[in-house]
């Protein structure tokens, strides 16, 4: 009962702020609505007993990536709002139609899959269950034993992205 109330209210806030993100006129307001959206998603993770994901969401997403967005928005703050001249070749309503079709397709998939018998995941495809208890310990165990190679590749990816971002944003090369 309590979980239902929590879920519905969190879902309402998440979707509401997401709509505000894409419809706000002022870009800074858009970024702020995105932060609040991420904070509510982190609350949803706490409800799903994924505490590590929740704090990583706040720390990395809300506290790192969106700060980066805010910096860029403040640096490119134009005198004229960027959407004042409508490109005649753009068909905005076509985008809405395509998104509506996509939503219909996704809902159909979801409805169809819930009518099927709930089969567990193919157990041979899953990594073994971690022998430690506690959410952080389990994630850490998996990351350092079975998913070690993706972990190292991810760190290389971050290094490459960092170098790329620095070079792209420098004034003179």
């Amino acid at each position: 009962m309590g979980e239902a109330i929590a879920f519905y209210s969190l879902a309402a806030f998440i979707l509401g702020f997401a709509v505000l993100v894409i419809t706000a006129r002022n870009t800074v307001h858009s970024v702020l609505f995105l932060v609040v959206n991420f904070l509510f998603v982190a609350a949803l993770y706490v409800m799903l007993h994924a505490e590590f994901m929740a704090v990583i969401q706040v720390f990395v997403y809300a506290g790192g990536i969106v700060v980066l967005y805010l910096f860029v928005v403040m640096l490119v703050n134009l005198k004229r709002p960027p959407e004042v001249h409508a490109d005649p070749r753009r068909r905005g309503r076509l985008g809405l139609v395509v998104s509506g079709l996509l939503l219909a397709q996704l809902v159909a998939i979801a409805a169809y899959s819930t009518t099927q018998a709930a089969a567990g995941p193919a157990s041979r495809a899953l990594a073994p269950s971690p022998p430690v208890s506690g959410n952080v310990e389990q994630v850490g165990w998996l990351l350092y034993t079975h998913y070690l190679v993706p972990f190292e590749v991810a760190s290389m990816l971050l290094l490459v992205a960092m170098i790329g971002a620095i070079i792209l944003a420098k004034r003179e090369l």
Partner: protein
Amino acid sequence: MIDIVVIPLLKIVIVLVAVLAGVAYLVLLERKVIAWVQVRLGPMRVGPHGILQPIADGLKLFLKEDITPARADRWVYTAAPIISLVPALIVFAVIPFGRDVSLFGTTVPLHIADINVGLLYIVSVASIGVYGLILAGYSSNSKYPLLSSLRASAQLISYEVAVTMTLVSMILMAGTLSMVGIVESQREAGLWFVFAQPVAFAIYMIGGLAETNRAPFDLPEAEQELVGGFHTEYSGMRFAFFFLAEYANMIVISAVAVTLFLGGWLRPFPGVDALAFLDVVPVWMWFLLKIFVFLLVFLWIRATLPRYRYDQLMRLGWKVLIPLAIANVVVTGILKVVL
């Protein structure tokens, strides 16, 4: 019922009141300490030896006119001080103030919540606090605050990396992310972690000074530099919020340092039985004493050291502290496996 709702609410009220009162008197203490270092007396008029000065300050800020700049972004302008203050206060939810005590028939733990990711919670909440600075500068629609807030937030996020790396080495030492667990692991190890990780402690102290925009890293808000920094256009209660947020951040950094490095509520040398006579001091008093020592060190540094220039500050953060902190993590990891 009583221990799910009433006791935590009571604890929250006590902690909030204590922190806000502490912040108010920390302002007075700062003025007094800096005055004594400079061989003068500080506030002396309001009440005996200036004891009532914070009340006078609070009253003044409360009654001041609340000015909003002409073309400021009104909602963001109002929200920025709140975004600055709230993260500084909610960190106290995970800080353990002492051992369990028995009150009203049940054992009451002396912390509001013991979450299993306590340390990460503190770091993530601190990273939300950066928004207060950025939004204050942006929404004031004025060039001094904008420049200063960009500098302040760049400083904050740079030193956040170094501080997080030192916290990672503490996680390695303690083996757990929960704050209560870290204090317990120091009790089991029988020594405060500051003796095991002096480098991490030094980096944390320097990073903590930079995180709270305190001297010598207070370029973003120094009066001689950018008029007032990011809170130039704020007055009255909103300025009071920024003021409170800065001093509350100081207390937060001290509290986290005490919990991680100085053994939280443990007495000195908790493993040595010969010093068991020190247990007569209640545990929360040890905690407050240690925080007080830290705060005095903060104030002492402010009274003594000159200000860092911005590029010197960034150079220190990126080129010295971060490599040192990462090296510390690597060495800690190796020693943990070897020893």
